């Protein structure tokens, strides 16, 4: 763990601090102030990503460091969408997740940049990676709802959390599918095959299949086995974390740009 004594590092720590303040205000029963500070955190997160974009001269989605900056930037808008469209709450946990996501970027991942290699110079680069980033944030939110559901036991609140997690995961699956298919199309354009049996591809497929299993199980039993629904969502999140971080650092992959 090292402190980043750079302008980028300062922006990261500021984003972290603002999100933690927003969390503290929200759990301290000042939700309106919490929302305002949360929105401010989003603005600073955008500034952090924009600064990185300017510094490296290309869209900052190549390195793990950059990926985590973008993930944090997406948390607030997706929070707002979930609240407005489905009345899915739990924004204080979103704030905490955003702050936690910045720990690896702020203290672990190296900041050094690299030029974009030929394979990443494609119009599909941004849509493919962004589809996955949006999906991951949504699935994280669905997982938080699933954990809240398990924590609520058999209370009426548990059913609300279960429905919330299902609705958020639905949009997450659309984006996961989009990311998977865009990646296959890009693989065909860049490497000659829409499927290369690469570790990242196989784990992404496994992620998709786990969520597919969740939706089929829910279609079969509805809310009768709600705890199994929650468990499948949590399993999906575990697979996502390994796909995003574990594969990058532990397994050989053609997607090694990020390590």
């Amino acid at each position, binding site marked *: 763990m090292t402190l980043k004594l750079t302008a980028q590092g300062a922006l990261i720590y500021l984003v972290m601090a603002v999100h933690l303040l927003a969390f503290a205000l929200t759990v301290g029963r000042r939700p309106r102030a919490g929302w305002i500070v949360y929105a401010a955190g989003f603005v600073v997160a955008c500034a952090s990503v924009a600064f990185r974009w300017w510094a490296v001269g290309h869209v900052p989605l190549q390195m793990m460091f950059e990926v985590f900056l973008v993930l944090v930037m997406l948390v607030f808008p997706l929070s707002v969408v979930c609240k407005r469209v489905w009345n899915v709450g739990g924004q204080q946990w979103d704030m905490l997740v955003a702050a936690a996501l910045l720990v690896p970027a702020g203290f672990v991942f190296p900041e050094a940049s690299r030029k974009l290699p030929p394979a990443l110079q494609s119009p599909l680069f941004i849509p493919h990676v962004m589809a996955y980033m949006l999906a991951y944030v949504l699935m994280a939110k669905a997982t938080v709802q699933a954990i809240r559901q398990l924590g609520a036991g058999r209370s009426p609140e548990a059913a609300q959390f279960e429905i919330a997690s299902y609705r958020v995961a639905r949009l997450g699956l659309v984006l996961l599918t989009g990311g998977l298919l865009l990646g*296959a199309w890009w693989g*065909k354009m860049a490497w*000659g*095959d829409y499927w290369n*049996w690469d570790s990242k591809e*196989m784990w992404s497929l496994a992620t998709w*299949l786990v969520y597919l299993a969740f939706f089929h*199980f829910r279609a079969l039993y509805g809310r009768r086995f709600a705890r199994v629904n929650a468990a499948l969502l949590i399993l999906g999140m575990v697979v996502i974390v390994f796909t995003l971080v574990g594969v990058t650092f532990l397994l050989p992959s053609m997607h090694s740009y990020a390590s």
Partner: protein
Amino acid sequence: MDAADDSRPMGSVRRFFLLGAVIGCLVLAVLSVIPTFLGPDAAKKWFLSPLGAAAWGIFAFLAAAGIVAIGALRRRLGLLAMHVGMVLVIAGAMWGSELMCRLRSDLFGSARITEGHMMIGQGESSSEVFDQARAEIGRLPFEVHLEKFWIEYYDVAPEEPWEFTSWTIDRGSEGAWVGQRVEWRQGKPIKLSPCDVELLVTDYQLARYGEGPDAPVLPEVKVRLSRDGAAIEGLLQPEPGMPELRLSLAALYGSEEAWREADAPWLRLQPPTPVIKDFKSALIVRDGDRELARKTIEVNAPLHVGGYHFYQFSYDQDDEQYTVLSVVSDAGLSTVYAGFILLIGGLVWHVLSFRRPRRTRGGDVR
């Protein structure tokens, strides 16, 4: 499709296929990740084996049988499109797979190449396709001519730091010198592999030599090299027209002879290595005297002709005189792409067809 909202009892057929889908998805998920710990070749080998093909075949069967057996699935356009798409993707993939190509070749004598590589020199033509072991696997029904191959580099900014590389003799390859980049950072000591010498860059400054914007900008580097309690310090100042500076470490070993006997490296300070931005091949495809296609290909911009795709795969790393193309057959590709479109289109349609939840006055969602 939300069973929680459907008050009709579920038929046993629908239950069977849904449960089969759940189990199938989870089993395939596990089978997908296990081979990743063994490497991409192991994963490919498993999934292209009869057992792997059977697993996907069963999955496709479940999707197809579900369409036939479950009326609700057929009545909802989005769900139907998704499942048909899934079947098409698997069918197209199987049709284009090496296994199926071998079967077609054995049964019908079809000699189509599935995938391979071509190595073509500048100004030369070829129709030969090789596998990874450089054994010829067949010939294309046309010739590919390489007009020109070239590499584009990113501009090197004047302030980009110069590189240190350490060079040692590789006894195994007839005494060839092997260089290794040293990942240095100012103020951070770093061990030079494979010896026990430590390099510390104490100061790195840039100086402009001359007047005007085109005057060269060169570094002035203060270094400290230490080993076994002994240390030497120096200032490295490349001059205009001097592409690199070499530094002997003999002083740390007592004598040149001791330095050679220890197989210790020498150090080189050199300008930053330009980073490759792109590499391109200008190709012409001919069938006798008839020109079929002409295109400059690069990574992400292949050439499509005669049922094959040609990709910029690699090149002559020493002299940049030949290009290496990857050749891939398009068998099954349009079926797979059609499946992709139906899969994502069906999913989007299905999700959009859900009613937006209505809120009660109390803010509860229904």
